[in-house]
């Protein structure tokens, strides 16, 4: 048998797989170069050179959209590694940082865009860069909180013995971070990244063409292309955009996430042979290619090298962090108190003081309307998708076909499909209060479907056999077997769907087709109209009320339901 050489990796110069990998890499670099060109052009140029509805331009637009997506993802990753680490390592900071994350998760991102837009535009006035920042930041907000949460949770659940091993072999904190903590957190992190991707596509589409008051900007991309198509009432162009997006998401999934998911499989700590090793042709290609392997090893070497370069703290450190330091505690508490007071003052002086009671009540009423819609739609979607999901999940072959489709549908930005529905509503003069509502759940209903499918296929064969053996059928079977078994999964899906629907309300409750604008009464349309009018006071009020509603609903309804389902019905 050949002797393994840990550091000797470059033996052959090139293999067949190298050629393929070479093409992909060069293609990627070319695309990045194309996408980042013109970033520094003055903003006025955006208005001078108008977007074109020519489908030939779509590949370029798609490339730019994808570039924003990647940048947002990178930014989220940086945020995750710093913020979540801080929250996990410092007991003191964690107490505040974790709840902040939880609230941030509930803030409607779309409403946020208009607020951040002006900020970023002012940072880089007159330049495209500012507008790009706005879009990237929107993507960031749709992913970062989720990812940070996942990373934080992983850091808190590292098995004690692994931590002790790292400590007893005296790994420096830096080395421990890269050799233990990051790898351990990787599988959950990648999974979360993939899940929040759908949100990302949704917001990148929505944030490319934004008008706040008199400032209007449209960045070249699929989102602004579709905005232009709506303005021109061009159904054919919308069709092109949808087709493009389908391809982009497919490529993104196949080239980025499939390989990542297959790759992180090795980082799972449960060492029992996995149920099924995830496969990816792209990963196989990367693994077999010596060049990419070389890059991999170089990365590993870099981690080791930086571990050596970073100054080592040789002072013994047991329990030093655990020991409470009174004076530091006091400082931290006073800092937090100062921040809270400042925040409160801004809220009172800037928002509440200027808000007549009537206005506040009006907004709350609108929020109730939107809440009614969200819950109604979730109930409706559940009625449709739970039976179908169970049916599919019980049939492995059907599940194999339907599951990827459901996940794909969840990733597809539903707002691309809105124009078609709006066209229909305008054409048949339907009641927007009712017929605009389904748009809110168009993209999020799939979470219910694929979670239920996952739940149903996880029902142990023995349990199904028992049911068959005792001839438990019909409604009894649904009540005693199927529904309890999928409940934990269903709740997870419904929570995601509900959160997404609140967000979608901002674009779904107010839609336009050419010059025609239709609107459903609700908090979403309130925020959207305030954005168009550039009324920041109303925008902030709307966002605040919506965040409040989402937080309260989560705490009082979804979270208890989730724990109840986990405790009572989780099959282990």
């Amino acid at each position, binding site marked *: 048998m050949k002797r393994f050489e*840990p550091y000797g990796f470059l033996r052959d110069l090139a293999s067949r797989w190298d050629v393929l990998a070479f093409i992909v890499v060069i293609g990627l670099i070319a695309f990045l170069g194309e996408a980042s060109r013109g970033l520094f052009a003055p903003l006025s140029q955006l208005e001078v050179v108008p977007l074109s509805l020519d489908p030939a331009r779509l590949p370029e637009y798609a490339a730019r959209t994808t570039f924003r997506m990647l940048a947002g993802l990178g930014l989220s990753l940086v945020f995750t590694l710093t913020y979540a680490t801080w929250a996990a390592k410092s007991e003191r900071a964690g107490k505040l940082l974790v709840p902040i994350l939880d609230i941030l998760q509930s803030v409607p991102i779309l409403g946020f865009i208009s607020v951040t837009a002006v900020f970023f535009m002012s940072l880089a006035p007159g330049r495209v860069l500012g507008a790009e920042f706005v879009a990237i930041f929107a993507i960031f907000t749709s992913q970062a909180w989720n990812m940070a949460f996942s990373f934080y949770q992983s850091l808190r659940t590292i098995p004690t*013995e*692994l931590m002790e*091993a790292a400590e*007893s*072999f005296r790994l420096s904190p830096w080395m421990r971070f890269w050799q233990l903590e990051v790898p351990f957190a990787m599988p959950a992190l990648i999974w979360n990244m993939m899940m929040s991707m759908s949100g990302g596509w949704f917001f990148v589409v929505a944030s490319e063409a934004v008008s706040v008051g008199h400032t209007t900007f449209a960045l070249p991309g699929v989102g602004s292309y579709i905005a232009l198509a709506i303005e021109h009432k061009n159904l054919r162009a919308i069709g092109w955009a949808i087709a493009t997006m389908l391809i982009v998401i497919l490529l993104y999934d196949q080239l980025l996430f499939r390989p990542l998911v297959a790759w992180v499989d*090795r980082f799972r*700590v449960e060492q029992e042979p996995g149920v099924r090793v995830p496969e990816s042709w792209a990963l196989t290609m990367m693994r077999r290619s010596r060049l990419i392997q070389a890059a991999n090893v170089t990365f590993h070497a870099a981690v080791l090298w930086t571990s050596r370069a970073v100054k080592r703290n040789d002072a*013994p450190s*047991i329990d030093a962090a655990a020991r409470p330091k009174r004076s530091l505690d006091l400082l931290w508490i006073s800092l937090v108190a100062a921040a809270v007071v400042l925040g409160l003052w801004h809220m009172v002086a800037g928002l509440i003081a200027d808000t007549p009671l009537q206005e506040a009540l009006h907004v709350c009423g609108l929020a109730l309307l939107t809440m009614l819609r969200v819950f109604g739609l979730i109930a409706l979607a559940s009625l449709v998708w739970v039976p179908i999901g169970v049916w599919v999940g019980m049939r492995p072959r059907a599940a194999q076909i339907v599951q990827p489709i459901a996940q794909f549908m969840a990733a597809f930005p539903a707002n691309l499909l809105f124009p078609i529905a709006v066209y229909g509503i305008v054409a048949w003069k339907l009641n927007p209060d009712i017929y605009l509502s389904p748009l809110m759940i168009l993209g999020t209903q799939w979470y219910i479907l694929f979670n239920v499918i996952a739940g149903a296929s996880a029902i142990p064969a023995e349990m199904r056999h028992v049911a068959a053996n005792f001839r438990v059928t019909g409604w009894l079977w649904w009540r005693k077997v199927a529904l309890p078994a999928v409940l934990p999964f269903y709740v997870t899906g419904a929570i995601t769907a509900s959160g997404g629907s609140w967000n979608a309300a901002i674009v779904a409750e107010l839609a336009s087709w050419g010059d025609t604008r239709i609107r459903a009464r609700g908090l979403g349309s309130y925020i959207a109209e305030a954005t168009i009018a550039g009324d920041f006071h109303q925008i902030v009020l709307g966002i605040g009320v919506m965040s409040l509603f989402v937080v309260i609903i989560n705490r009082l309804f979804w979270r208890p339901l989730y724990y109840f389902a986990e405790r009572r019905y989780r099959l282990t």
Partner: protein
Amino acid sequence: MNNAPLLQCTDVRKSFPKPDGAELLVLEGMNLELREGQIVGLLGRSGSGKSTLLRLIAGLAEPSDGQLFYLGQPIVGPAAGIAMVFQSFALFPWLTVFENVALGLEAQRMPRAEIRKRSLAAIDLIGLDGFESAYPRELSGGMRQRVGFARALVVHPNILLMDEPFSALDVLTAETLRTDFLDLWAEGRMPIKGVILVTHNIEEAVLMCDRILVFGTNPGRILSEIKVSLPQPRNRLDPSFRELVENIYVEMTARPQGSASRHERFPGSGIGTALPHVSSNLLAGLMEAVAAPPFNGKADLPEIASDLQMEIDELFPVAETLQMLRFAELEGGDLKLTEAGMAFAQSALDERKRIFLRHLLTYVPLAAHVRRVLDERASHSARKSRFIDELEDFMNEEAAEQSLRAVVSWGRYAEAFAYDNENAMFSLENPT
């Protein structure tokens, strides 16, 4: 040569703060010395603080009182010359065998060539040749623990700490690994000077150690120290080996002397006694086994342990619960059924429940207390939290939960009371 012992612990004490400000004592009066060429065993069951002591030595935790010295120097953090082998192996699944082994040297920033040389040497020594590029998940449990050993040996420690290193392995694999380890140790091929082995397996301790410290529980402390002077390699069937094992069983089941310690585990008085969670099935099963031939009511503990394939960690709590319920007597390494115990073993289910109910309410104060509260109340029901609060005056939250769980399961079996988990309510009614 340095005359200081490899390791010295003097009057070490460890306690953890409880939420109410009081402290929970887990380890007390620990005095221990490790000299070159010795394997010292820390033998006891879970909760006796032996693993805690090992972590103090490893520098992973700080003693509340007393001092630990490594080569005459106080231990204030993980020391370079002390390496540890873990019960669950604690390998990094994303690193190959080679990378796992090299990790400790990387942390010391040794030159690359040196790391490579030493890692491969350690891998060779421990019999992992050819597995360098494998990931832990591809290996069997035995091979994984070999990686654990190689990873510890590669840093050339003076002291090797082993935390129940064989307990996660099947019997055959564990035996092979033990023998391999002892061979390497006898031949002096490992770069280590002394070993501390934590175990709850009596035979393993006698097989491997030169000295055995027997730990008692509540709080963890050393009950006795036993020198093992049998020549290596030792034979489990050797009469003197058997005798030693027997003696340790006697030692570990001896009634603690003095009234103070009598009150520690099963004082038989007051509700402030932590109860082990032992299912009624296990209790009945052990009584049946002891009542049946060849034991006929009196069983030698090592014998019945090997008969039922139970480790002392599993057997002792069951035997002691029987003793607490006055179904059996534990003495001199024997488990002897009382009259009631024999009657129980020979009865049918309904009669068993009656006997069990009588003994439960007579000898388990907490069960009697719960029953009394339920009887006295007009509603015949009481919240679980009510009892938890009471128990927490005597023990920590975890022990309180566990004690109440034990009482719930015994009470349900004896039909002394009912418990509704959903609402956390005790009651006298049967569920509808």
